[in-house]
C-alpha cells in the first residue's frame, strides 16, 4: 500500500460510518441482553447444526453462565470501542471471533438446516458479511481520524496512516 497517498475525507468518513454502524449493532445487542435477565444463548447453542459437540459443551449447565456473561461483555466492549474509537483493532478481532462463532453454530452450508432466518442464504449470511466488514475496520483503523484514540496518539497518526 502506498503509505504516502491520503484517503479523501469522504473515503475516511465512509469507513468511520461503517465502524459506527457495526459498533451500534453490537452495543444495542449487548444492552438488550444485559437488561434481559432471562436471556441465555443456551437455545441457540443447543440447536447448533455444525460442530455440535463444541456448542453443546458451551451450552452445558456448568459453562453456560460464563458463556452468557462473556457474550454480553464482548458485545458491549466491541460496541463501546467501535463507537468511541478506542482500541478498535482489538475490538475488530473480538467482534470477528464472536461473529464467526454465531456463523459456525448455524452456518448456511448446503444440506444443513437453515434454522430461523429472515432471508435466504448460501454459504454467505449477514454474520459473515459483518465479520468481513470488521476485517476492513481492522485493516483501515479510523480511530485516529474519529475517536478517542486521536487524543492519545496525535503525532503517530500523521506520519504513518493514510487515513487522517
Amino acid at each position, binding site marked *: 500500500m502506498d503509505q504516502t497517498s491520503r484517503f479523501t475525507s469522504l473515503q475516511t468518513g465512509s469507513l468511520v460510518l461503517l465502524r459506527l454502524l457495526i459498533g451500534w449493532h453490537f452495543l*444495542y445487542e449487548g444492552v438488550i441482553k444485559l437488561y434481559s435477565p432471562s436471556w441465555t444463548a443456551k437455545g441457540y447453542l443447543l440447536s447448533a447444526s455444525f460442530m455440535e459437540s463444541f456448542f453443546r459443551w458451551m451450552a452445558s449447565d456448568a459453562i453456560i453462565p460464563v458463556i452468557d456473561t462473556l457474550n454480553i461483555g464482548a458485545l458491549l466492549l466491541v460496541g463501546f470501542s467501535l463507537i468511541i*474509537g478506542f482500541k478498535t483493532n482489538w475490538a475488530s478481532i473480538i467482534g470477528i471471533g464472536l461473529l464467526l462463532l454465531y456463523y459456525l453454530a448455524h452456518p448456511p452450508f448446503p444440506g444443513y438446516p437453515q434454522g430461523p432466518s429472515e432471508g435466504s442464504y448460501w454459504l454467505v449470511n449477514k454474520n459473515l458479511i459483518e465479520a468481513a466488514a470488521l476485517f476492513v475496520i481492522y485493516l483501515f483503523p479510523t480511530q485516529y481520524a474519529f475517536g478517542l484514540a486521536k487524543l*492519545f496518539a496525535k503525532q503517530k497518526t500523521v506520519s504513518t496512516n493514510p487515513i487522517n
Partner: protein
Amino acid sequence: MATDKNLFKGFSRREWLKILGGIPIFGAVWTAGFRSNEKALSERNLLLETLNIKASAPPASGPMTGEPLRVGLIGFGIRGEQLMRSLGFATTEWIDDMVKSAAENPDDKRLAEFQAQESLNVKLTAICDIFDVRAEKALKSFDTKENPCKRYKTHLELFNSGEVDAVIIATPDHWHAPMAIAAIEAGLHVYVEKPMTHTIQETYDLREACRKNPDIKFAVGHQHRQTQSFLTAQDAIAKNTLGHVSLVVTATNRNDDNGAWQYDIHPDASTETIDWNAFLGTAPQIPFNAEHFFRWRKWWAYGSGLSGDLLTHDYDRINCVLKMGIPKYITGSGGVYTHRDGRNVPDVMQINMDFPEFSTGTSQTPGKEKGMTLVYSATLGNQFDRGTVLMGHDASMELGNMVTIYADPRSTKYKDLIKENRVDPSVPIYQYDPSANGVDAVTSATAKYFANKGLLWTYRDGKRVDSTFLHLREWMSCIRNGGNPSCGITEGFEEAITAHMGGLSYKIGRRIEWDAENEQIIALPGENLDEILLNNDDVFIS
C-alpha cells in the same frame, strides 16, 4: 499535570468533535436499549400482575422412612418393567443396554437419572407373571440377598401370601378390576394401571370395594397428575384467565407399529410357557393365540383400544385441571383404517364429550357461561403433534409440560389491553416453562410427544423427574403418612365410565347419555351395555 496539558494542547474545536463525537452516539444507543427493555419488562410485569397466575409445583409427598414397604407386582410386561424402574428396580439387561447407550451417546442420561432416583424404601417381595420367561427375567434381576423376591403362579396366591403390603397391577385391562377388588378384599393397597376397569359393572364393583375398605390406599396410574404445569393451569382457570371455555381439543397421534400396539411376540411363547387359561379369565374362551397374548390391546375382549388406553390419559389430564367429571353425552366415531390386521378396536377415533352445564366462569353478560365440549381425536396413522388446547372466550391455553396462554382477539376481558396494543393476540400473554432452568437434551419425537403430555417426566426445581416415579411415590406416601392419592377411586371412576361411554358410542353408533343423578349410563330397553362393550366379534370398518 504538565503532561496532561501538553496532551490536550493544540486541538481545535473541530478536532475535539472528532475525538469525543462517539460519546453521544454511545449514550444514545445505550439509553435506547435500556428504555426498550424497561418498557417491555414493565408491560410484562403489569400483565403478569393482572393475570396473577401462581406458577406452583404440586406439594411434595411425605417421607419414605420407616419399615420398608413390601410390594408385589402382577404383570412384568412393557409397563410392568417401566413401573419397576420407577420403583427402583431395573433388570440387568436394561442396565447393560443403558451403559452401552450412554457410551455411544453422552446425552443419554437415562441410566444416570435412574441411579440418582431417590430410594422409595421398598422391598419387591413378590412377582406374578403367567409367562415364564418374564417371571424368570424379573426374578433373575430382583431376587437377591438384600431383596428376596418370590414368584407366585396366580395373583390370588400372591395376595394371600402374607408377604406383601401393597400391589401394583400392570396386566391386560380385563384383569384390572378383578385383581384390584381381590387385592383390596385381601387388605392390600393397590396401584392399578389405566383404564381402571374393563366393564361398566366392574367400575361400580371396584368403587364399592374401595368404599368398604376406606383404609386401603387405591391409586390409578395416571402419572401425568404429577406434572408441574397442571397446578399452574388450574390456577389460571381459577383466576378466570380464559373466560368461558366452550371447547377443549386434545389428541393422540401415532404412526408406528409400537404405537399401534404391534408389540413383539416372544419366540418362546407357547402353551408350555404361558398359562393361557389364566390370561383368558372371563374373556371368550379361544385356543392359545400368541398374538392375542402379546398384542391384547387390539381386541375388545382384553383391552379397549384408543378409548381405554389413550383417551383415558387425555380425559384425566383435562379432568385434573377442570374437574368437570363425567360428560353428560358422548358421541364417538372412527374405524379400523390403517392397521387392517385382524384387530377389532379402531385405529382412528373421535370422541366428543359434552358438558352442557359445566362452567369455567365468564367475563360476559350472564347467560353465556355454560356448556363445554371436549373433543378427543386420535389416529394411529399420523404423528403430527396437535397439542391440547383449552379454548375460552377470553383466551386459549396450550397445555403440556408448558402452559402457554394467548388472548383471544375478540376477548371481552382483554379488549382494552388489545386496543391499547399492550396485548398482542399472536404473542402469549403468559408462558410457564418448568424446565426453563434446565433445558433437556434432544430425545426422540415419540418421547417428546409423551413428555409434553406429562406422561414421561415432569420438572421439580428445574430438574427433570420421572412422573411415574412421583406418582408411585405419592401413593406410597399416602400408605405411610396418610392422605389420598391424586388419582384415586373417584377420579378412576370418572375416567373409566367416560372411557366406556366412548367405547359404547363408537360401537353402537349412538349418542350415549350419562344420568348423573342415578349414576347410570342410559341403556335402551333390552340393551346390555357391558355385553356390547365386550363384544369381540364385530369389526367396525366403515
